[in-house]
């Protein structure tokens, strides 16, 4: 079976700077794959290219054999590859439930005009959105805060809200942007379980970009390591732990890591 997501020779240059150089790897269906690397390794640039938030300089990203790089972001989302953001990127003045309802935009059956006139399909959509939002929030354990304004939520909940918004679009692949950043150990472990259950119970393939080594080791099926814009290793957590290049890269920039 061909891989779900393929990153093929992707390169990104900003002026003279090369953020990513000739990176290739695959993501298989139902897998949790993490991309790690020290600061400035080019993780977030790669992440943005996969979700088409920035264009590639060369190379391409394929989803089920279809190119999804260098499109408009919403086109990628429509194909089923959806990214999340770090906590500051939320719908500030919507409640949790409202956010999750809006995020189901892609699943709407009625047209915009249909909604305007209040057609029957639109009515059904609205009902189903509400039901699904409640179900999703229950699944994520967020029912208690569903009527809170997003701007009033604490950090940990914001991350969960981000994932809820992403899941509400009914994605095939969910791209998580540093889901564990700034969390303490307990919160991280809870998030690890949550991400697992997203994959296990909802059949969503997960790719994440992360700093937190222990969490990544725990959650990932496979890991891709970047350093200075290059891919230096790929493999299972145990393979990566014993990879000399990886150890060197991390030791070399140990100060930065502590600085985080």
């Amino acid at each position, binding site marked *: 079976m061909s891989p779900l997501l393929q990153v093929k020779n992707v390169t990104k240059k900003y002026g003279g700077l090369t953020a990513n150089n000739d990176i290739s790897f695959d993501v298989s269906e139902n897998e949790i794959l993490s991309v790690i690397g020290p600061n400035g390794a080019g993780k977030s640039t790669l992440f943005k290219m996969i*979700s088409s*938030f920035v264009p590639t300089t060369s190379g391409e990203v394929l989803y089920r054999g279809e190119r999804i790089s260098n499109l*408009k*972001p*919403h086109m990628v*989302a*429509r194909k089923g590859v*959806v*990214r*999340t*953001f770090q906590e500051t*990127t*939320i*719908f*500030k*003045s*919507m409640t949790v439930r*409202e956010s999750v*309802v*809006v*995020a189901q*935009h*892609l699943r*709407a059956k*009625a047209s*915009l005009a249909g*909604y*305007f*006139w*209040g057609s029957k399909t*639109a*009515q059904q*959509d609205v009902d189903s959105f509400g039901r699904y939002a409640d179900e999703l929030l229950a699944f994520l354990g967020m029912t208690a805060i569903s009527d809170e304004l997003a701007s009033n939520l604490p950090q940990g909940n914001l991350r969960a809200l981000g994932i809820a*918004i*992403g899941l*509400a*679009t009914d994605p095939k692949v969910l791209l998580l942007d540093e889901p564990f950043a700034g969390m303490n150990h307990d919160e991280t472990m809870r998030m690890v379980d949550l991400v697992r259950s997203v994959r296990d119970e909802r059949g969503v393939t997960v790719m994440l970009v992360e700093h937190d080594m222990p969490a990544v080791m725990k959650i990932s099926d496979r890991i891709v390591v970047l350093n200075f814009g290059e891919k230096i290793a790929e493999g299972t957590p145990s393979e990566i732990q014993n990879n000399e290049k990886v150890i060197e890269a991390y030791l070399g920039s140990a100060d930065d890591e502590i600085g985080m």
Partner: protein
Amino acid sequence: MMNLSAKHVLGVAIFLLVIFVGVPLFIAATGRWDFYFTLTSVALLAIASAGVWLTFYIGRINIGQGAFALVGAYVSAILVVKAGWSFWLSLPAAGLFAALVAALLGLPILRLRGVYFAMITLVFTQVATLTALALPITNGAKGITNIPLPSGVSLFGITLIPDFGEIENARMAFYFTACILMVITYATLYRLVNSRLGHLCRSMQQNEELASSIGVNITYIRILIFSISSFFGGIGGAMFGSISQSVYPATFVVKDSVDFMLNCFLGGLGYVFGPMLGTLVIYFGWDLLFEFGKYQLLIYSIILIVVIRFLPDGLLSIRFSKGGKK
């Protein structure tokens, strides 16, 4: 249509009763016939302001509505005077043409945000005025004058709309027309904001990146909204041209664009009916202060400053619920 509570229905009914029955009775009783024009102006300016409000809803400060009102006024005037169209046909045409201009213009400029979008629309207002001065079809500096009043419309011999030139009280006719248009505009706006499109706009207003990550085609919605908003501007402008029976390059200028924006701010950006109230207060307020002679502007500006100082989120922020009445 959907989930309008009894309270809402009552509110709407009272509102309609006031503007269509209450105001005419009040005017007849007090003899203040000049209120007809003032209120007609308020209704028309409120239509244009509704458009500005809508662009706020996708997070853009629009100081270009004067340009679209001018476009609308000219399109209608040219169609009526030079092509002999009925005013009632030229009215939607004016709105559509303004919407078309907005779509073409919006393609490059809607990528901008904040003051950048505000400034470019402000410059566009200047461009519209200067274009009207330079083009032959607009008659340049001389403007288009002697525009006939709206003609009648009849279907199968039944008069649907009387000829404004022949009826006794054209001001009243214009008042009713403007009010009907305003009611339609705000009903549309209300539905828009409370339907899915409105939710998507709100999501864009708050975070365009996140909106596009959940599959919202932000480019399309921005242009759609900007076109709708300019459609309102075009309609408002065309009606004004018809009332004054003349259009000049200076009929709508930068000051009007700024005024439309202020109407929205004053009423409150968070409320659908904010621009309507804002227009009423700003326009009517000026007229009421007429009695103060040369201190009119002074008093007017002081009141404005006091309001914004103590109600920075607009007049409607006194009420805490969201969404306006209806």
